[in-house]
């Protein structure tokens, strides 16, 4: 069994890791680097709770072989906290009760960040489609959508929220 060395930047920090064949990015983030906001809900690519941003793109860490992200930049919710990039979104989630058990929430946050990075002014349809890969079993989705709409309205300086 051959191990390899993989080097990648996670949440702004360079990590050099010894990895074995089929370790996933999810395994590394959670178990090696302790970024436990990355959740494992299915390991099938179906629930989205493992969502992270790799080289600027939303990806599922549970299906990403770690060796494919050698040299890449990865961001998890912990990284977004560090850079205070989603404080307004987090406040809106609290205001709108957009989380109950909280298990899907980190994946949602990351997916929303990816959406707003590429489209700062999405309408409801675009929000719904952007979150189509993130399953929530508790909220019924509406509070989450409303939280995003509120943040969008805030950011674009619209009145009333």
């Amino acid at each position, binding site marked *: *069994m*051959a191990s*390899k060395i993989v080097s990648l930047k996670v949440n702004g920090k360079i990590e050099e890791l010894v990895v*074995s*064949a*089929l370790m*996933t990015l999810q395994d590394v983030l959670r178990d090696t680097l302790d970024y436990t906001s990355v959740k494992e809900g299915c390991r*099938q*690519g179906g629930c*989205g709770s493992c*969502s992270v941003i790799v080289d600027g*793109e*939303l*990806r*599922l860490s*549970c*299906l*990403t*072989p770690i*060796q*494919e992200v050698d040299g890449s930049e990865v961001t998890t919710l912990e990284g977004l906290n560090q850079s205070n990039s989603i404080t307004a979104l987090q406040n809106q989630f609290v205001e709108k009760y957009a989380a109950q058990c909280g298990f899907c929430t980190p994946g949602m946050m990351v*997916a929303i960040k*990816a*959406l707003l990075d590429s489209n700062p002014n999405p309408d409801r349809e675009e929000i*719904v*489609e*952007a*979150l*189509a*890969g*993130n399953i929530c079993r508790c909220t019924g989705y509406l509070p989450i959508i409303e939280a995003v709409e509120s943040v969008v309205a805030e950011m674009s300086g619209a009145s009333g929220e």
Partner: protein
Amino acid sequence: MAEYLQPGSVEEAAGMIASHGSSLAIVAGGTSAMRYSAPQAEQVMGVRGLGMNKIERSSGGLSLGAGVTMSQIRESLPIPALQDAARGVGGPAVQNMATIGGNIFARQPYGDVAVVLLALDATVTFSTANGERSQKLVEFYDAGAQADGLLTRIDCAAPGGELVYLKCGRRRFNSPTVVAVAACIGIDNGKVGNACIAFGGAGKHPMRCVAAEQALIGKALGDASIKAAAQQAAGACSPGTDSVATEWYRRRMIATYLTRALQQIAAG
């Protein structure tokens, strides 16, 4: 315990496939292989780094690298049918990862983009230990979808008519396929001159439906010929039953969705 291989070139990859054969699993985006083939394989070969992600358009048609992702199709390939198909593959994260090549090998009922490629009568090119080899995608499927090399490229000519793709799923977005249909119909002097109809979720792999095509050739595209084509399609396919839908329901949706696709083309 698996070995992870990262070939530096397409030729090297072809060599690895030749030496390891069926004990080797290929991972491009990972959305299929990381679930199904890779966990049990003795060797896993990652091909993301091989640069097979170019889209080339010419007057003659289209050349797509096997590593082109669903997101790339949506963003850079203004062929509505292909974009619609890519849009229906998983959610945004999956679309960033999943490739056309993976889609061609995806187990049924997945493989929506492959359905459109069939309707475009695409040609697939493999890099093997003995050099490059190409064949029609439809023949590749008919022969059992066994690859003896690395799928590197998909070529198709410009569509010979109007091309429509429709998908029957369980949800609007991020839904596995009940059935998918792609129809490319060329009208000549008021009659159907050429027809290319393909289905997903209708058999062991994405398939052309010659019976439905024959029901249209030489006829005006209207209620009568559309009905006949739909009937032929429902009878000619062998959909399966799985956790997404039953064979019973799929057979009916094949007829329904072909009808809708053809009506959309007829309406112009």
